[in-house]
């Protein structure tokens, strides 16, 4: 299945990526390729196989409700491109 340019642009908008015309074309190729590979996988007969979202059959991996130490705020903010006081600072985003 080939993705359309419009579909690529829609995806880019959803993840907030600005793409050049060249990049749209290149990603259209690559994403279409991934989809085509899944089309091949879909030919496998899975009639008697229960569906799963995981490849390892784990379940009920739970943690007791105990709190532990957090990072120091300075460490939390150490990668921030922009900060103010002890906060991350970002451009205003349209409120929902």
């Amino acid at each position, binding site marked *: 299945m080939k993705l359309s340019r419009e579909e690529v642009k829609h995806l880019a908008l*959803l993840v907030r990526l600005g793409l050049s015309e060249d990049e749209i074309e290149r990603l259209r190729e690559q994403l279409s390729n991934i989809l085509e590979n899944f089309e091949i996988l879909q030919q496998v007969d899975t009639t008697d196989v229960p569906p799963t979202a995981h490849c390892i059959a784990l379940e009920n991996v739970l943690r007791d409700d105990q*709190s532990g130490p*957090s990072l120091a705020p300075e460490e939390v903010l150490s990668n921030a491109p922009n900060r103010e006081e*002890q906060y991350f600072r970002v451009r205003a*985003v*349209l409120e*929902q």
Partner: protein
Amino acid sequence: MEHETIIGLEVHTQLLTRSKMFCRCSADYASAPPNSHVCPVCLGMPGVLPTINRKAIEYAVMTALALQCRIPEFTKFDRKNYPYPDLMKGYQISQYDAPIGVQGWMLTETAGEQRRVNIKRVHLEEDVAKLIHRTDSVGESYSLIDVNRAGVPLMEIVTEPDLRSPEEARQFLMKLRTILQYLGVSTGNMEEGSFRCDANVSIRPEGSADTLAKVEVKNMNSFKAVYRALEFEASRQRKVAAERGRLYQETRGWADDKGVTQPQRSKEYAQDYRYFPEPDLPPLTLSPAWVDELRASLPGLPEARRDQFASRYALPEYDARLLAGSKALADYFGECMKAYHGPAPEKRAKTVSNWLLGEFARWINAEGMEIHQSRVTPPQLVELVEMCEQNALTGPAAKAVFEEMFRTGHPPREIAARLGLTQISDLSAVEAAVKAAIAANAQAVVDFRAGKQQSLTFLVGQVMKATRGRANPGVVTEILRRELETG
């Protein structure tokens, strides 16, 4: 044409766990400095692995059980993708097609009429970071992010559109909050944002199955705001329909200061969350044994507590319902009764209830306090009640003592002694005060002798005033009558 109002609610409530939903950061961030309860997991750093908090699952199952939900054995978490800076990872871990509980219900009572409100689902997700909007010196707006709240367990409870009036919606919410408080899973504090509510409101011609446009109302931060916002929105829609205008499916925000709902700017594209199963979290099996264990651990809920108060202490239905309507108040009442060991507990129960629903509630409300912050302890309140029963305090004096107890937390006997409010037991002192009142109010005496009964009440009041409420009103009346009739 008559229209009926159709309301569905979506409640989000933070769970009272020690740690966050998927990491070990403390979930108690209320008074913490910004970004101090944050780790690589809730910060959304690459390569980290979330782990599910067992307690959060148990709290959600307990809530679902209390709401009569079915608990499917299979449940799992999903990713909900959307770009907003309050999400550190670019997605929220939530539940999509396999929630913890489904198909529940709760009875709600409005103006004596009981109705069943169906619960569509109860699911778990993580709370998001807090944004603070600011404007810089050149008028450019920007946002500050505090990640402390991100990752706090958040439970979502969704009703079917079964509510038929704003008052019913308010009653439902208050009852739901009480249930959560009884379960001990949430503080249910709406003003602090640990208990939030959005609503879907629409109208339809009476008897018709087709609603007109469904409007989502957000930003209601108190029970009163929910009521007012829904009242406004329902009548707005009726007005548009009456004028043959068109209603749109939209999201509107409640502006509390203006008392109106306003259209919220919506994103320019349709919501496209691209849900998919969370790859980092294996699914869960809620075994019948585990669910039964949680069912057995459920505490008595408001209705059970109300019935218990009514039967055990012979309290009137009205008192029992009000006391049980708040877990904190019900617990306080229970402590008071525990502090009393004498005979006839039902007589005592009614007196204690009168104090709790009267002066105690009045002072708590006036000071904007929570019941657990009260400086008056249950044994102290019981002591005050006993002093009244032993006639050591008159009614007005007891109120004055209570006020001082409420302010200082000191025991009632000490306060009564300090303020000189203990009842005058010396009869000659009362007689002297009566004689003084008769001498000072000649006209009232004449009126009484002419048959005006109110004059007696007036004179009793004068004596009470002169003794600063320390005389027993019954004794005062008796002596007054005697003096007036013989004098």
